[in-house]
């Protein structure tokens, strides 16, 4: 079942890539989707059925603009610091905690952190994230977690659970 779903996912990706519904293309797509799904079965996501739950897709849809907003803000922030003649930065590496459980969720969180204002994930060890912060505004761990992680964690929890 899991394998079949993987195949279907792969086939969807194939259709996107070729953007053709000609029988020949679909036939080739089915064949190669199966091949690739079989070859990569070991590293495919553990629960492909999750990709077919609409609820997750809903939250993902919510997350996209939310994340985009922060991303644009982050860029403007960086732009400000870079262009400013004095370069107002106060960098450092801080340690924050996440309550997300799955690998994918944590990865998404780390990536989100990297792309959003002033932060960059350096490493992740268990539930600790080490984040390079361009402007360390507080040295308090709770507050740091609050500032960096919380805002994404809420929605990501709903997507990845």
């Amino acid at each position, binding site marked *: 079942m899991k394998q079949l779903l993987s195949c279907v996912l792969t086939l969807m990706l194939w259709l996107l*890539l070729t953007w053709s519904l000609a029988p020949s293309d679909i036939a080739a797509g089915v064949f190669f989707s199966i091949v690739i799904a079989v070859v990569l079965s070991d590293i495919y996501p553990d629960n492909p059925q999750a990709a077919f739950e609409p609820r997750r897709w809903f939250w993902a849809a919510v997350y996209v603009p939310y994340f985009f907003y922060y991303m644009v803000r982050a*860029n403007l922030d*960086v732009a400000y610091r*870079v262009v400013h003649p004095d*370069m107002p930065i106060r*960098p*450092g590496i801080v340690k924050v905690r996440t309550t997300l459980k799955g690998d994918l969720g944590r990865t998404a969180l780390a990536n989100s952190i*990297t792309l959003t204002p002033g932060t960059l994930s*350096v490493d992740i060890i268990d539930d600790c994230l*080490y984040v390079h912060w361009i402007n360390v505004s507080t040295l308090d761990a709770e507050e740091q977690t609050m500032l960096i992680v919380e805002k994404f964690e809420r929605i990501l929890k709903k997507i990845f659970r």
Partner: protein
Amino acid sequence: MTIDPIPMVFITVGLLFDLLGCIGLVRLPDVYNRAQAATKCVTLGTCLVLIGVAAQFGVSALGIKALLCMIFVLFTSPVGAHAIVRGAYRSGVKMWGGSVVDAYADVAASEQEKS
């Protein structure tokens, strides 16, 4: 080919972000800060350009490809930056003198000892 105004805006903004990111790459004092600035700006910039292309070509093979490419860049570029910065830290690149805190130092040191 005529480029529509909306894609043009996307692309222009994207390109400017690219440029900003690269300026950051040059100006900022250490590798961690440079990676931050450059990754953020250039990722966004390139994504915007790709969105512009997608918008220009609409729902076609090309447009979809542009979107797929954008998703790919969005997924991978922060990972790349993360990997480099981690590598940099572990290869012993010091942080800028003006840095205020380093919570990672102990972890990295103990990892090094283990290996």
